[in-house]
């Protein structure tokens, strides 16, 4: 399994799984429609508690990264997240604010900070940008 958990990290194991799967789905390492191991299979292959994997899957399902088809299996999904507009916004705003605070304490100017965010966005949104041959708005 390409997922790696580090039990000695301060980040809960379920969040480590969520982040790695989210990342994998975003970069195309996981293709949409691809079947994922069951909760039990993944728990055993990582030697972690099945409740931990179940919690990760719940979170990923709520965010629209995976879809569970009862009695069939778990699949990578490209459906929109099951979050309200506000929840969606708040989630990203919270992370952005923390990041901004970190940039501020490293003495980034506002301009440097937004440029860095644009650079990062360009890497993550690469494929979409190629399709539209567009640029990211400032």
């Amino acid at each position, binding site marked *: 399994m390409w997922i790696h*958990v580090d*039990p*000695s*990290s*301060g*980040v*809960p*194991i*379920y*969040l480590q799984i969520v982040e790695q799967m989210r990342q994998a789905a975003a970069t195309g390492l996981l293709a949409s429609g691809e079947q994922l191991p069951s909760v*039990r299979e993944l*728990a*055993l292959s990582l*030697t*972690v*508690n*099945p*409740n*931990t994997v179940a*919690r990760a899957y719940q979170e990923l399902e709520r965010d629209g990264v995976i879809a569970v088809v009862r009695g069939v299996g778990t699949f990578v999904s490209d459906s929109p997240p099951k979050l309200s507009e506000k929840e969606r916004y708040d989630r990203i705003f*919270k992370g952005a*604010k*923390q990041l901004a*605070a*970190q940039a501020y*304490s490293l003495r980034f100017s506002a301009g440097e900070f937004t440029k860095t965010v644009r650079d990062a966005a360009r890497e993550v949104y690469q494929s979409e940008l190629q399709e539209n041959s567009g640029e990211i708005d400032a």
Partner: protein
Amino acid sequence: MRSMREYAIETEGLTKTYDDVKAVDGLKLQVPAGSIFGLLGPNGAGKTTTIKMLLGLVAPTSGSARVLGFDVRTQSEEIRRRVGYLSETSSMYGYMSVGEILSFTKRLYPRWDKSVEDKYVDMFRLPRTRRVSALSRGMKTQLGLILALAPCPDLIVLDEPTNGLDPVGIRDFLQAILQEVSGTGQTVLMSSHMLYQVERVADWVGLIVRGRLLLSRPMDQLKLGQKKIQAAFQVNPPERIFQMPGIERVNRDGRRYVIHVSDNVDEILMNLREIPHFAVDVVDLNLEDIFMEYAGNGGTPS
């Protein structure tokens, strides 16, 4: 059919005194049914004494305990029939062979699962004809695990279970527990001072120091909640900010602060960052850090 009890183990004021020393001191322990509960604590914290009281092997000095609904003082037979137990010091009959002890134990348990026995005797490569006394320490532990799992008990109690196992052996051991227990509703109570093993498989953690239970929480909640914030402010922060709920302790060294948090970390951070600062950083704590927070300063959390 397993009953829908909320807690597999529930104790109230459980105390054991040896001479004048309180080995276990007013323990209020609740182990949720179906959980894998890691009971952590330094050597001599009272883990083994607690386990022995739960199995009716040691009589409590005061307090009460129910295991699977049975009273440890009056119904210990009932309890032992339903519990698989791997003790810290292996107390198996050394003169028996591996095969003999397996068939001897099998007769005591109506729900014994022969396929579990066979699977793990093979996997651990235990020689059925060898005497128990001639097994290595690790093999005795592996045999002990089979004796605890194969009866398909409602509760599995493992006291310092990975003694004598190498890293591969430990991984196989934990795999076997997850494989057999997950989805069955069985409860596992596992004592250990080896934190990383517990960190992988346990979904609940209890920390016991000097006979007292200092905390008991779901593993994820513990890791999400327990943080250390390192901060340096450009101005003196208002004192009331350190009264926010979730802040356990604040250490100050000049303009540098270390703020120990057990909950509510996002809100605390937002508030701290509104004060002009040089840095406000969060440090994630792993189980060992949290353990040291509590056990390291003599068992007082603040």
